[in-house]
């Protein structure tokens, strides 16, 4: 029996109990190294507890309303393939994998790439088949000792995806992971965990897409670990379009080696409370990371993007552009940390965060943090937060474009810098559709 939320007085307690009950159901698996890591993670979670706003990293993002709720953890769903069709992205081709309330749905998923290009399997199956192989990477990149949510995920995650791209493989078809929270019946929580290993000189495109069904609360606490071997290239898109009852906390942890290239675009269209951590360790020479972000909280939505780039080796490059459009009482947070370690001479690191605030009640908090311990580096950062340009609006109106149209056109153009990074056309079309609808509302 999955624990239901009525039975517990405290969310943390519920989670700790869920772990212990799960452990009792394990047989030989509890002896594995992987399970020992989970136990340590649980202890870390127990000790850390949920962060409060006194925690520097959570100053502007209050998880109180999240932890006051009760959720069914890893609940099952009655979602059918027919019902799923309303969530489909038109014309999407490639490897499309569905996860409902955290569980992989083999019948709904399509894996089209040949196995010599890429091996794709669910985490649950991969652990069963090869616990040591998964254990060799699991939790090796994403540190759980300092982060309660990563610790929680490490302890409790049961499913997700494991992707291995062999050396020199070019994965022609994109991989799209669709995480659906089915909150039609009750509050649901899931803890997906992904592991993506890209071999030497290989290339792959992976998208994580998040949707919620129903009016109850949903909570996704996801961790994705990515490792790029030398000369590897990866495009990684994270696309969030959840409901105003959805909580999302996610960490994407990337480990890069020599001359690897990583391109990330994080687009948050909707969600009640969203926290994205994107942490990249450039642990190789000539490694390059590009990070783009777009968020557009309105109503009472809250979107927090934390990025961390750790330049650990010489001659590495990072470039970051985050853009926000904030309306109504929406709030946004951007916290961008750049570390340049003493060895990392000739680092180039650029960071920019630009925001348009459309309502007097919307707020944006930006905090660039540069910690530079090498002397021969080029770093720049800049943040701007302003209103829509009145001069531009008047210019457009004077040519016959009505005010609302002009406004939409300007905001749409503002978003394009980020959207144009997404190279999967059906996903871009889908995003542009949602964005246009949101801007013209």
């Amino acid at each position, binding site marked *: 029996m999955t624990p239901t939320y009525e039975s517990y007085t405290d969310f943390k307690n519920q989670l700790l109990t869920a772990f212990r009950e799960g452990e009792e159901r394990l047989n030989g698996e509890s002896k594995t190294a992987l399970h020992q890591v989970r136990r340590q993670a649980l202890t870390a979670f127990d000790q850390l507890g949920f962060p409060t706003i006194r925690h520097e990293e959570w100053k502007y993002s209050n998880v109180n309303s999240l932890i006051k709720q009760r959720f069914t953890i890893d609940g099952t769903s009655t979602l059918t393939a027919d019902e799923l069709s309303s969530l489909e992205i038109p014309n999407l081709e490639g490897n499309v994998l569905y996860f409902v309330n955290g569980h992989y749905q083999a019948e709904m998923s399509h894996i089209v790439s040949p196995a010599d290009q890429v091996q794709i399997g669910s985490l649950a199956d991969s652990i069963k088949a090869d616990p040591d192989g998964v254990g060799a990477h699991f939790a090796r990149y994403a540190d759980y000792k300092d982060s309660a949510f990563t610790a929680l995920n490490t302890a409790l995650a049961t499913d997700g995806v494991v992707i291995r791209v062999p050396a020199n493989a070019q994965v022609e078809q994109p991989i799209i992971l669709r995480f659906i929270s089915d909150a039609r019946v009750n509050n649901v929580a899931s803890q997906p965990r992904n592991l993506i290993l890209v071999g030497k000189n290989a290339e792959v495109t992976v998208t994580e897409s998040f949707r919620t069904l129903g009016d109850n609360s949903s909570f996704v606490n996801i961790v994705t670990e990515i490792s790029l071997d030398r000369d590897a290239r990866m495009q990684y898109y994270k696309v969030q379009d959840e409901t105003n009852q959805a909580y999302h906390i996610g960490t994407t942890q990337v480990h890069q080696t020599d001359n690897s290239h990583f391109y990330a675009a994080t687009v948050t269209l909707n969600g009640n409370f969203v926290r994205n951590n994107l942490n990249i360790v450039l642990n190789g020479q000539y490694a390059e990371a590009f990070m783009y972000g777009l968020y557009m909280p309105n109503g009472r939505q809250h979107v927090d993007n934390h990025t961390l780039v750790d330049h650990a080796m010489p001659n590495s490059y990072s470039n970051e552009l985050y853009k926000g459009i904030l309306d109504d009482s929406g709030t946004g947070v951007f916290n961008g940390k750049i570390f340049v370690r003493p060895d990392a001479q000739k680092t180039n690191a650029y960071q920019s965060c630009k925001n348009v605030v459309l309502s007097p009640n919307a707020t944006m908090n930006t905090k660039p943090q540069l910690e530079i311990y090498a002397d021969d580096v080029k770093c720049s950062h800049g943040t701007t937060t302003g209103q829509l*340009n009145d*001069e531009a609006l008047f210019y457009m109106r004077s040519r016959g474009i009505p005010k609302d149209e002009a406004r939409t*056109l300007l905001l749409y153009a503002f978003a394009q810098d980020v959207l144009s990074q997404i190279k999967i056309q059906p996903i871009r079309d889908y995003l542009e559709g949602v964005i246009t609808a949101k801007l013209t509302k």
Partner: protein
Amino acid sequence: MLSISNLQAVIGEKQILRGLDLEVKAGEVHAIMGPNGAGKSTLASVLAGREDYEVTGGSVLFDGKDLLDMAPEERAAEGIFLAFQYPVEIPGVSTTNFLKTAMNEIRKYRGEQPLDAVQFLKLMKEKMQLVNIDQSLLSRSLNEGFSGGEKKRNEIFQMAMLEPKLAILDETDSGLDIDALRIVAEGVNKLRSPERATIVVTHYQRLLDYIVPDFVHVLYKGRIVKSGPKELAYELEEKGYDWIKAEVA
């Protein structure tokens, strides 16, 4: 076509237009000259509907309709076009996309069908030739990083595309080299017709050699203080404004 009487406008606390009168009939070209700060751009902006200015008195009729009652986009759809003294940069929107949106909005206002892609491109090609503008410029973000002259030429290109009834050119000649000046003037002259009118704001008589005006007006301290035939422009070029200031005082 345009009938301005006793127009008064303020920005903030400052009164800029102080009872301005001007009549423009279809088919005519009017030049407005005057010293810096006289209110020429203010007049142009008020006619285009910039909301920073508050009209405190007077009236403006355009084809018999109360212009001051209309939103800027309605004025554009009614046929008013302002070539800006300082064209605004619109990041992320190409001239092509911008103009297509503008044209189809105007057509919608007039109850016409939108232009399809083929019709639009054909029109673009034709007008590009007219003002000798390069395709590469039109696919870039509107005015962003354009040189001064390119911005002005782009204004005239937009005018040629939109074919307004009344075009107001605010110092379109400043910053243009001689060749560009001739091209811009040709663009304006090609649009000249018995149904259209043009108001040319300029500091230099030179432009008026190319766009020959029917009337020249001097705007000073928020009023038209002197009007005359095209020869008035030569007189101003030669003598400056002091004699007019003295006349008014």
